[in-house]
């Protein structure tokens, strides 16, 4: 139980940026799995159900690995 409590506490204090990136990787895996299974890309609701995650969190996490595409980096790096 102490372990779980520590896990929960750590989970709450990690930065959103890191949490979203980790979730993003899991979503990508799940998306590939479902695409193979269905023979087409899954819808947002299918993916959110498969991930056990609300649509809104899915949408935010989907953006997480897009950051390097931001014009800031395109223009200034």
């Amino acid at each position, binding site marked *: 139980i102490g372990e779980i409590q520590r896990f929960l506490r750590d989970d709450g204090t990690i*930065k*959103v940026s890191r949490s979203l990136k980790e979730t993003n990787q899991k979503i990508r895996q799940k998306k590939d799995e479902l695409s193979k299974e269905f023979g087409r890309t899954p819808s947002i609701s299918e993916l959110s159900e498969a991930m056990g995650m609300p649509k*809104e969190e899915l949408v*935010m996490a989907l953006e997480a690995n897009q950051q390097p595409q931001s014009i800031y980096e395109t223009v200034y790096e």
Partner: protein
Amino acid sequence: MNNYMKVEFVAKSENESFARVTVASFIAQLDPTVDELTEIKTVVSEAVTNAIIHGYDEDEEGRVVLECEIKNSEVELRISDDGHGMDNIDEATQPLFTSKPELERSGMGFTIMENFMDALSVTSEYGKGTTVIMRKKFNQNQPTCN
């Protein structure tokens, strides 16, 4: 870092989760912790739900306006509606007070906003509308992990 956005949307309950993501993705620039973001999303839900349900009785002609301003590490949220308004703000903001017990509302909306934010102010005029302003400082303590 300073930034500003304003979003306006139809008073439909579907837009509560839209409002939550919108604010969350704006605040994400400050790279808060998961807990801090969850708290902000909760107060946005409470204030937006109040505007939709109490302000407009879910009348889809109603428009909710949500502004978010970032000044250095402080966030100010302003949620307003031109709906029914209230005549007794002191009573309305008491814990457990609800004017819609039939909807199984908890009456804890304002109490939650007060607890999760550093400052809360409510202005309202009966028949005119309501504005809720909340403030919170982020990144008070340096990140412990990352």
